[in-house]
C-alpha cells in the first residue's frame, strides 16, 4: 500500500463524523477552531476523456463515468468520500428539459448532495469552492460534459438564447454577434485581422502537441484569412469548431488536500461576473465582464501586478479576436497591445507570456459549458509539470478564464498555484 493510499484510508476510517457535515455547528467557538481565516482549497484530482469532434461510441453517461473514474483515482478517493457534487449543464445543450436529473448516477452521487449550475465549468468550480469554504463539504466534486456532436441544430440552439422580441426575429446565424463585436474591437484598438489570424495559427499548432486536443493543425495566416467568410470580418477558421468530452475535478480543503495529494493545486483567487445581456446596451469593444471577474480573482489572490505574477494563461478563444480582447480585459496588457504582442510571438509557448499553450478552444474545440473545464484542466497539468511536450518551464501561477459564448456577456476567472 502506497503512502498516499494509507493516508486516504486513515482519513476515511475516521469516517463522516471526523470530517463530514457540520457537527457542533451551534457551538460558537467551533467556528474559529474549524475555519481559520487561512483556509485554503486545492484541486487534488482531475480526470478527462480528452476532447474529440465526435464520440459516437459512448453515451453522455459513460463519458462522464470515465472522467470521474480517473479523477477519483488520482485523488485517491471513492465517491462515498465526497461530501457534495456540482454538475454543469444547460438544458438545450443536453437535449433535456431538466438536465440536472441525469447528473448523479455516473458520478456515484446517488442520494448525495448534488446540484447543477447552468453556467460555465468555472462557475461550478466557484460554487464547489464556496461549499468547502462555508463548511458544508470537505471534499467536493465538479463535473462538466460536452456532447456538442449530438446537437443537430446547433446554430438554432445558440440562436434560441437571443432576446425573443428584439434580436431573434432577425433569424441570422448568431455568429453575427461575434462579427459585430470583432468589427468594433478592431476599430477601437487598431488590431488587424492578420493579428487575429495569428492566434488561430498559434493555437492550432499548440494543439498538435496536446494529446487531449481534437483540432490541432499546421496552417499559416493566409489560410485563415482566405477561408470562407461567415460574418465579416469573421472567417470560418476564426471560429472554433466544437468538441465532445468530459472533465471531472476533485476539490478538497487544505488538511485533506495535503493528506491525499502530493501535488495539490491551490485555488488562490476566483471571480465571475456578468455584464448586461441586452445587446443594445453592450459596449461592443471591451470584455468588461472579464475585467471585473479578473479584478475579483486578483484581489482574492493578492495579485497587484498581473503581468508579473501570472506565468501563463488559458483563456477563452472561441473566436480568434476573443483571445486578444480577453487578454486585454485580464489586464495582462494594455488595450490594443494584445494584437502586436501576438504577432511578435510573446504569447507563444516559448514567449514571455504563454497564452493557451493547450491549444485553446480553437485547437481543442469549443466545449460550450465545459470550456472552462478544459482551461482549468490544462492549467493544473502545467502546474503539476504533466503537460507533456507543451510543458512550460518553472511555472508557479496560472490563470484560467472562460466566457459563456454568444450571445452572453458572462465570464469567469480562476487563479491557480502549485
Amino acid at each position, binding site marked *: 500500500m502506497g503512502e498516499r493510499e494509507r493516508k486516504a484510508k486513515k482519513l476515511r476510517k475516521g469516517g463522516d463524523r471526523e470530517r463530514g457535515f457540520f457537527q457542533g455547528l451551534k457551538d460558537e467557538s467551533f467556528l474559529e477552531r474549524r475555519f481559520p481565516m487561512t483556509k485554503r482549497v486545492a484541486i487534488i484530482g482531475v480526470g478527462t476523456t480528452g476532447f474529440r469532434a465526435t*464520440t459516437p*461510441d*459512448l*453515451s453522455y453517461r459513460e463519458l462522464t463515468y470515465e472522467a470521474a473514474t480517473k479523477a477519483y483515482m488520482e485523488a485517491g478517493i*471513492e465517491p462515498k468520500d465526497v461530501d457534495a457534487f456540482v454538475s454543469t449543464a444547460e438544458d438545450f445543450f443536453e*437535449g433535456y428539459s431538466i438536465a440536472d436529473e441525469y447528473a448523479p448516477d455516473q458520478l*456515484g452521487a446517488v442520494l448525495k448532495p448534488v446540484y447543477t449550475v447552468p453556467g460555465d465549468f468555472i462557475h461550478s468550480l466557484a460554487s464547489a469552492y464556496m461549499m468547502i469554504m462555508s463548511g458544508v463539504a470537505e471534499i467536493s466534486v465538479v463535473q462538466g460534459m460536452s*456532447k456538442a456532436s449530438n446537437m443537430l441544430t446547433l446554430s*438554432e*440552439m445558440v440562436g434560441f438564447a437571443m432576446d425573443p422580441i428584439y434580436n431573434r426575429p432577425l433569424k441570422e446565424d448568431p455568429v453575427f454577434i461575434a462579427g459585430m463585436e470583432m468589427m468594433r474591437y478592431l476599430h477601437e484598438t487598431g488590431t488587424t485581422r492578420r493579428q487575429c489570424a495569428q492566434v488561430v495559427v498559434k493555437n492550432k499548432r499548440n494543439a498538435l502537441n496536446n494529446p487531449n486536443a481534437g483540432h490541432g493543425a499546421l496552417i499559416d495566416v493566409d489560410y485563415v484569412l482566405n477561408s470562407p467568410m461567415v460574418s465579416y470580418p469573421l472567417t470560418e477558421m476564426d471560429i472554433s469548431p466544437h468538441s465532445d468530452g468530459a472533465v471531472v475535478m476533485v476539490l478538497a480543503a487544505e488538511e485533506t488536500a495535503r493528506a491525499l495529494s502530493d501535488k495539490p493545486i491551490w485555488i488562490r483567487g476566483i471571480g465571475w461576473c456578468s455584464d448586461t445581456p441586452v445587446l443594445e446596451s453592450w459596449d461592443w469593444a471591451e470584455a468588461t465582464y472579464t475585467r471585473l471577474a479578473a479584478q475579483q480573482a486578483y484581489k482574492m489572490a493578492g495579485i497587484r501586478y498581473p503581468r508579473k505574477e501570472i506565468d501563463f494563461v488559458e483563456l477563452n478563444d472561441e473566436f480568434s479576436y476573443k483571445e486578444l480582447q480577453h487578454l486585454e480585459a485580464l489586464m495582462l496588457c494594455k488595450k490594443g497591445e494584445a494584437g502586436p504582442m501576438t504577432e511578435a510571438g510573446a504569447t507563444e509557448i516559448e514567449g514571455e507570456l504563454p497564452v493557451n499553450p493547450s491549444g485553446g478552444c480553437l485547437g481543442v474545440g469549443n466545449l460550450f459549458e465545459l470550456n472552462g473545464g478544459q482551461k482549468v484542466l490544462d492549467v493544473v497539468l502545467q502546474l503539476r509539470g504533466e503537460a507533456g511536450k507543451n510543458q512550460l518551464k518553472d511555472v508557479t501561477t496560472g490563470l484560467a478564464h472562460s466566457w459563456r459564448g454568444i450571445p452572453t456577456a458572462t465570464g469567469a476567472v480562476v487563479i491557480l498555484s502549485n
Partner: protein
Amino acid sequence: MQELITKEMVERTVTGLSERDIREGKVITTTWKPNLRYAWDNGPALGRYLAELKNGRIIGKRCRRCNRILLPPRMFCELCWRPTDEWVYVKDTGVVNTFVISYIDWKAGRIPKGQRPFTPAVIEIDGASPGMGILHLLDEVEPEKIYIGMRVKAVWKPPKERIGAITDIKYFKPY
C-alpha cells in the same frame, strides 16, 4: 396585524392576461418555433438494449457486488461505483408495481370521449432484481381492472416492424 408584503404592493407587480387577450391580439406578442433536434449516442449499454429489443428480447446487466440485475442495462453500477459484469437476458413478463389511468396526453390535452385512456405503469420485469422496473403502457385490459401486483406480459410488434426501440414492445397485457 403586521404584514410585510401587502396585497396593494403585490397587485401592482403583474398584469394578468387571458388566453383571449393573446389570441385576439389585444397585447403584442411574438411567436417562435425552435428547431431543437438531437442524435444522442447510445453507447454500449443502451445500444445493446435497443438491439436486443429488435430481436424481441429484453437484456439487463448484472453487478456482481450488489448482485442486482440492472434494467435498463448500464456499463457501471451507480450504487457500487464499478463497471458492471455480465449481460443477462430477462423475461418479457413482469408485475405491475404501480399504474395510472390517464385521460390526458402529453400536451395536457384531454383524450377524445370514448377513446381508451392511457394506462402507463411501472412494471417490475421477471428475472431482473426486485424493484427493477421500467415504464411502459398496459393494454388489453379494462382500466378499472388493473391492480398493483397484476402479472403482465409484453406484446411485441411483428419482427419486421421492429426498429430497435422501446416501442418495439407495443404494450404489456395481463396473462
